[in-house]
C-alpha cells in the first residue's frame, strides 16, 4: 500500500500522515516497518501537495443571455465595481 487511493480526501490524507509520523516518533517500530512507514509518509506528502495544486484557479461569471456560457473574469481586483451586470 504505497500509493494513496485516488478517492482519499485531502484532510484524511493529512490525518494519516500525522498518525504515521507520530508512530515513528514513538520509536518502537522495527526496522523494516520504519522504512515502509517512511515511504508511505513521503507518498502522502506528495499526494497532499498535489491535491492543493490541483484546482484550476479561475474566476468566471455566467453569461445569462447565452445559455451555458461563462465569461472569465480577468480583472479580479475590480470585480463588482465595473459594469459587469450581465
Amino acid at each position, binding site marked *: 500500500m504505497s500509493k494513496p487511493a485516488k478517492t482519499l480526501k485531502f*484532510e484524511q490524507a493529512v490525518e494519516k500522515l500525522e498518525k504515521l509520523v507520530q508512530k515513528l516518533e514513538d520509536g518502537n517500530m522495527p526496522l523494516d516497518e520504519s522504512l515502509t512507514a517512511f515511504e508511505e509518509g513521503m507518498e502522502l506528502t506528495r499526494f497532499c501537495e498535489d491535491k*492543493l495544486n490541483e484546482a484550476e484557479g479561475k474566476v468566471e461569471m455566467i453569461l445569462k443571455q447565452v445559455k451555458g456560457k461563462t465569461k472569465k473574469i480577468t480583472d479580479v481586483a475590480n470585480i*463588482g465595481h465595473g459594469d459587469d451586470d450581465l
Partner: protein
Amino acid sequence: MTIAQPDTITDIRKIYRVSEVTKDIRTLLEDNFASIWITGEVSNFKRAVSGHCYFTLKDESSNLAAVMFRQQSQRLKFAIEDGMEIIVHGRISVFESRGQYQIIVDAAEPKGIGALQLAFEQLKKKLAVEGLFDPAHKKLLPFLPQKIGLVTSSKGAAVHDMVTVLTRRFPNIHILIYPVKVQGEGSAVEIARAIVELNTDPGIDLLIVGRGGGSLEDLWAFNEEVVVRAIFNSALPIISAVGHETDFTLADFVADVRAPTPSVAAELAVPVMDELLQTIAAQRSGLHFATRQRLQSLREKIGFYKKSIKSPRQILEDWVLRVDEQADRLNLFAKRLFVEKKLALKGLRKTLLALSPFALLQRGYSVVTREGSLQPIRSVDEVKTGENLSVRLHEGMLKVKVN
C-alpha cells in the same frame, strides 16, 4: 345629487323601488367614503377559491363587512388572520343584491408591527414547524472545495469581498459567479433558480448565497418562501451571507452555515493554502527526523550488541585462559601437597626409626631368638638346657648354647 323628498305641497309621494334607493345609497356612500383608512380587528376571515378575501372588521360596538379582491390581496406580504388588528385602506360601497355596505380594501397593514415584520414571523413559524430549520438537516461543508458557486449581484461590495478573500486564501480556487437581482420584483425567483441551476453543475461542491447590507425591504428576497425552499432542497451545502452581522433572514436560518458577512462566508468556505502547505512541510520534516532517529537508535542497539557478542576465537581464548588459570592452581596445589606429604613422610620415618627395635640394639640391648626364628625369647621358662639360641647384637650375631 339630493335625495328626493316627498312633495308635501303637491301631496304626490315619490315611491322608490328598492333598487332605486339602494343605488342612491350606494352613490351617497361612494361619494363620501371614496378613500378612507380604517382600523379594526379581523374576524370571520375567509379566502374564497376565486382568491378574493372576505372578512369583517370590528371594534367594541360595530362591525363592518370587508372584501379584498384577489389582485390586491396577492400583493400582501403577510397573511390576514382572525383576531389580528389591522389598518386597511379602501372605499366604501354597497353590495346591492345583498343590501350590504362594505369596504372594498385595496391595501392593508398590520397594526403596531410592520407588514414585512409580520410576514417574516408568519413564514418563519410555518417553515419551522415543517422542520426546515432543524440542525439535523444541515450539511457539513467540504474541507477543500474544488469549485465554489456564488449567487449574488454582479455589482457591489459583496461579490468583490467574497472573490478577494477566496482568492487570497486559496489562489487556486475555481469560482463560478451566477449573477442575480438581489432585491426588487422577481429577485426571489431569480435567486431560487440560480441555486437550482448551480446544483446541476457536477464540479461545484459548495455554494455561497448572499448580498450586502440593506433595509428589511432590501433584504426581503432572502425571506421569501421560494428562496428558503431552494436552499433547503439544495444537494450542495450552502453558506448564507446576507447583509450585516445583525441581519437575520430566513435564508440564514435554513442554510447549512450562516455567515454574518460575505467576507466571513469566504473565510468559512476555504482554508488558507499556505497554512496547509506549511503543515505538510512540517509533517515531512517530522517524517525525515523521526525516521533518522529511529535508524540511529537501531544502529546504536546493533553496535551495543556487537560489543557484547564474542567471536568464536574470543570465546576460545577465554576458555584457554580459564583452563590455564585452573591448571596453574592445580599445579600449585599439587606441589604444596607433595611437599606436605614429603614432610609427613619424613616425620613418620623418624618416628618409625625411633620405635624400631634396632634402635634398642644400638643402645646395647640384644635380641635372643631360637635359631632361625625371629621370635624373641622373653622368659627363661621358654628355653631348655642345651638349646641352641641366636643372640642378635647391634653389630653381628652370636650362636650360643644354654647352660
